[in-house]
């Protein structure tokens, strides 16, 4: 019985993990799956998409949403040079100090600074957004069931409310948001940004790019993880084979 039983138990236990992992998203339809280049064993981020996505974040999302866990220096991973990152950082002013006069002062941001958010605190953010708090985006694709697919679905899921659906003031109808009423106005509209590489500025294109960027922001070590995992697997497969052969040889004395 041993081998079969073991298989059953492992499968059952994994099933349990499934049951634990999958939690129902209430009131909203399941999000459609998108193709992401960072999926799968050999998945990596597409640097061009990340740069376009960063542009969308900077020109659109960053008006309301911070990316608290990102530093300017992290942007080098998108394929920007050190000087380019310095240039990007220098466009923002940050508060530093106190200086030797005991006073705080403003200076251009440096690569070693965290990317500053649009609001000094949550209260200021709420006041500027009809009471809604725009969430931090640096972990958003890991902090929602459905991950990257879900964020993409929200960005592209804005519709006119169906007849008879009662909307609250300052709310917008989104097909994929739980309860369908979201405080965020539709953020993307065609030709909103001008991509340097000539990619079309359609809503699906911009949404796909910015979600790629946000996926990187949430999991910047994914490329390294996938590469290392492949090596670890090769090593373990060889080791498993060697140990299995040795086990057979040694145990042949018993059987």
């Amino acid at each position, binding site marked *: *019985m*041993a*081998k079969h*039983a*073991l298989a059953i*138990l*492992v499968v*059952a*236990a994994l*099933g*349990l*993990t499934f*049951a*634990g*992992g*999958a*939690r*129902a998203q*209430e009131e909203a339809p399941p999000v459609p799956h998108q193709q992401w280049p960072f999926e799968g*064993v050999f998945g990596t981020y597409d640097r061009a998409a990340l740069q376009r996505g960063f542009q969308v974040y900077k020109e659109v999302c960053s008006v309301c949403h911070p990316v*608290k*866990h990102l530093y300017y220096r*992290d942007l080098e991973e998108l394929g920007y040079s050190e000087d380019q990152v310095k240039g990007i950082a220098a466009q923002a002013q940050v508060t530093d100090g106190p200086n030797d006069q005991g006073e705080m002062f403003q200076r251009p941001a440096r690569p070693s600074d965290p990317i500053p958010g649009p609001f000094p605190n949550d209260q200021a953010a709420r006041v500027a957004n009809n009471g809604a708090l725009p969430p931090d985006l640096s*972990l958003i694709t*890991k*902090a*929602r*069931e459905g*991950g990257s697919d879900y964020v993409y679905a929200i960005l592209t899921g804005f519709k006119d409310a169906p007849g008879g659906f009662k909307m609250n003031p300052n709310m917008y109808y989104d097909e994929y948001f739980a309860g369908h009423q979201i405080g965020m106005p539709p953020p993307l509209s065609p030709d909103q940004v001008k991509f340097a590489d000539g990619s079309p500025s359609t809503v699906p294109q911009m949404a796909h790019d910015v979600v790629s960027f946000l996926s990187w922001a*949430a999991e*910047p*070590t994914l490329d*390294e*993880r*996938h590469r*290392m*995992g492949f090596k*670890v*697997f090769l090593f*373990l*497969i060889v*080791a*498993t084979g060697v*140990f*299995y052969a*040795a*086990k057979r040889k*040694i*145990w042949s004395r*018993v*059987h």
Partner: protein
Amino acid sequence: MAVPPASIPASGFSRLIRWIDYRLPFVALLEHDLVEYPTPKNLTYWWNFGSLAGIFLVIMIVTGVVLAMHYTPHADLAFDSVERIMRDVNYGWLLRYIHMNGASMFFLIVYIHLFRGLYYGSYKYPRELLWILGVVILLLMIATAFMGYVLPWGQMSYWAATVITNLFSAIPLVGNKIVTLLWGGFTVGNPTLNRFFSLHYLLPFVIVAVVGLHLVALHQHGSNNPLGIDMRGPQDSIPFHPYHTIKDSFGLCVALLVFAFFVFYAPNFAASADNYIPANPMVTPNHIVPEWYLLPYYAILRSITFDFLGIPSKLLGVLLSLGSLVILFFVPWLDTSRVRSARFRPVYRWVAWILPIDVIALGYVGSQPPAGFVVTLGQIATFYYYLHFLILMPLIGKLERPRPLPISIGTAVLEASGGLGAAGPAERH
């Protein structure tokens, strides 16, 4: 203690070993317990999970100690410090994903190990204390895992801590005092996080100590085996080294392959998305769900939706949930059969398999919002869990007629391999 056998030539090195062993019999102990240690020659791969669990305990402690060097146990800083580990600490993401998924792996292995013990009657005379120490380890693991889950201070951390510590308030008279003591205040907060961190660092070393006792108890009478009969002499046993060192190494590689898949390609598979949102006492998540390995206990807890014999439903839920673990302490005496291995027990061998199915059903119930059919299923599964241990186990042992046991491990092994040994006269215990 024994000195190394005289057959070893007295080189400088072996003289040094002998000098040490005469004063501190360390090498002799290794020789006795890791090399010569006699094991039944018919152990299957089910017997790999004990050493595997030990290795994962070490993996958890090593990664945990390094993570603690970078983690900040403060309510305002804990979440960010974990993200800092993920982003800026060298291989911090690897350490954390190993530690996170290692907990799941550790529980999976221990649950298989526990089921192995149940199926083959490894808890029966003379291994009752060995079993009880195992249950103590499980309880310590659950406490450690729960407190570890609180440390990242995400939404699920915070609310799991709130829900679970609140259970103690069900205790009559002193309940609320105990909860305040656990919290270090009047709500889950920074003092709670601090004491959980302290205990999360302490308990694994208590587990190591109990594992030590578990091993001493194991080596007193040796491993049980799939036949559940005792070793009768050298013909029934093989030395631990090289047979089990190599077999356990192979098993470890297979386990690491499974583990590596999750660490490198699905590190957040068992994680809750809510725990990547910083703890917020003002916002309750839609469904508060524990990690998968605690779901069955959570299901039992929530299945009690009614007062019974004047006991309030909350207290009864807590008692039955805790009882589902405490009952394991009494298994050596609840099982009245003298035959250890379910292989020779025509009725129990099926009943033994229904239990894990029941526990998995409980796990499913624990993962779902408690409404409608799920509640009924949870109540049936809870009832069956207790039925198994309190009624079926004692009753089947009395009523069932076990099949005849082989005379010895040696003859059974020869028969199984189609070998020379003619089937000897069957013997009944």
